[in-house]
């Protein structure tokens, strides 16, 4: 990659849009995941009894179980959200960028 190409790509509005929107989304989802996980872990460390509450009167099932399963499903959902956004938006931007570059714009 020559210095010229680098400059060309960096200045390209589609490149800037791609980089900014994608990294914002990626970091947002990462922070969300960390937040959920560490809230869960810290609850266990500091207030383990909270998770022991039964889901309903007389049930042996604690709310910790559906919460745990929900975190597993949530992780998968987040990966789905990212892949969906990447396929529908970022890949399109990237393709357009590559076409523009080939045209020498």
């Amino acid at each position: 990659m020559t210095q010229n190409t680098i400059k060309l790509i960096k200045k390209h509005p589609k490149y800037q849009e791609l980089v900014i929107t994608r990294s914002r989304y990626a970091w947002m989802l990462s922070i969300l995941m960390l937040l959920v996980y560490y809230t869960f872990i810290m609850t266990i460390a500091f207030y383990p009894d909270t998770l022991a509450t039964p889901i309903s009167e007389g049930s042996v099932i604690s709310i910790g179980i559906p919460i745990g399963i929900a975190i597993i499903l949530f992780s998968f959902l987040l990966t789905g959200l990212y892949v969906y956004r990447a396929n529908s938006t970022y890949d399109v931007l990237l393709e357009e960028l590559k076409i523009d570059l080939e045209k020498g714009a």
Partner: protein
Amino acid sequence: MLKTIIISFITFSSILFASGNIEGEIAHQPLNIAAIIMFLIFVGGTLMITYWAAKRTKTASDFYTAGGGITGFQNGMAIAGDYMSAASFLGISGLVYLAGYDGLIYSIGFLVGWPIILFLISERLRNLGKYTFADVASFRLKQEPIRILASFGAIATVILYLIAQMVGSGKLIELLFGLPYEYAVILVGILMILYVTFGGMLATTWVQIIKAGLLLSGATFMALAVLYHFDFSFEKLFQRAVDVHDKGIDIMSPGGLVSDPISAISLGIALMFGTAGLPHILMRFFTVADAKEARKSVFFATGFIGYFYILTFIIGFGAIVMVLNNPEYLDLAKQAISGGSPIVGGKNMAAIHLSHAVGGDLFLGFISAVAFATILAVVSGLTLAGASAISHDLYANVLEKGICDEAKEMRVSKIATIVLGIVAIGLGIAFEKQNIAFVVGLAFAIAASSNFPVLFLSMFWSKLTTRGAVIGGVLGLSTAILLVILGPIVWVDVLGNAEAIFPYKYPALFSVTVAFISIWFFSITDNSERAKAERVAFEAQDIRSQTGIGAEGASVH
């Protein structure tokens, strides 16, 4: 309560840090014919795949990355397969069996790293790398020192993991098939050498995919059988489990797995960053055609792994109601000494006994064969990762300075595979009677404290220099090793001292911090000409990592 905490802590660490997870002396079992037949079918099938793959493995790219022709779905299965090792299948269901809810906490910790790998790492990795993660780390830095550091981290992780897997496999096979320990270890070693040397990444990946499929189907069947037994009512299943388990209602809530915040954070960091620094996981990102497929791989992998953990949770509870207190699986000899109701082979055999309880001898044979296949598939992936570090990083890029013909590099990688296989057999036999509880934890600590920080900063931080990466990587690595040695697992449990010098079992929080801070410090104070050039080179690297322009493509057959 205190006792519960101590017990679950011990259990937990023995699962994370051990794979020699079948307890005690194992009496030779009668030959399990159904298991052996099914295992032979698996071995026959995979050897046929190896033969097929061998004909398609001609270039170095074929050998290291299956020519980049694996699809996202296939790679997702293979990644999930690498993750669903025998230790995690038997270990997590065993932990649920012993402590209930704590098993779920543990699996969640293992899973949450994956979405973050997807969001931040997977695409960049694919866009920058060719065969190994050292390709990425050394992209704009000085080749020799970075590759030496990265391959040292990779080989150390691989060897430690191999010890755990080999010892685990020997004991498991001894118990399941009635084969002597040494035979089992040698058999695993030879099969793995065959898969990897002849079939390369293509065979290794397909062995992993098939095994993942078998394991997921087997586990699904077991979970359904358990639920069927309780009319698909979780309430009934859990009620019964609470009634029969000696911890009673406590199995429905957190026990002593996470007791103080420092351990909790440190463990989270080890699992998350460690996963993102395991060479046999990272190399899978180079087997797909492009960043889009790399991204899909993680999506599928997260789905499979999450599903698998939900199954193991049900299986663990199934074992509580159907294996615990079942005279058929009781270890009478052990009960006579220590009382209680221990099961044959210890708690990590809970899932295996459950397979017998729900499906008789035939299904027991199936699950045993799958457990063996799991070990075989995981050690093959590990060996390939280690061999790539030796031949691609150390030989081709350090010794030969990147100028060496491909045929020669491939020959070195095959020799490296055979050597690693023999080393693995040797270590497996040498460590049979040793306390190896620390090895997987150490592997994770090294991956999190050396491989990961260097890799991550090389992709994200423009000011990183060779000096910073090397000094920081070495310091992270040595801190991790030192703290594991001074910690409770080695200092107290292995060396027999009364009290640990470093109080925590998981050093990651500290060693990762040391790595990041020292990489930062020794990079920003680096004013050499080389450092300036490296900073400038970040722009071109960043564009390639963001767009894939100039990335290694899939080879065309």
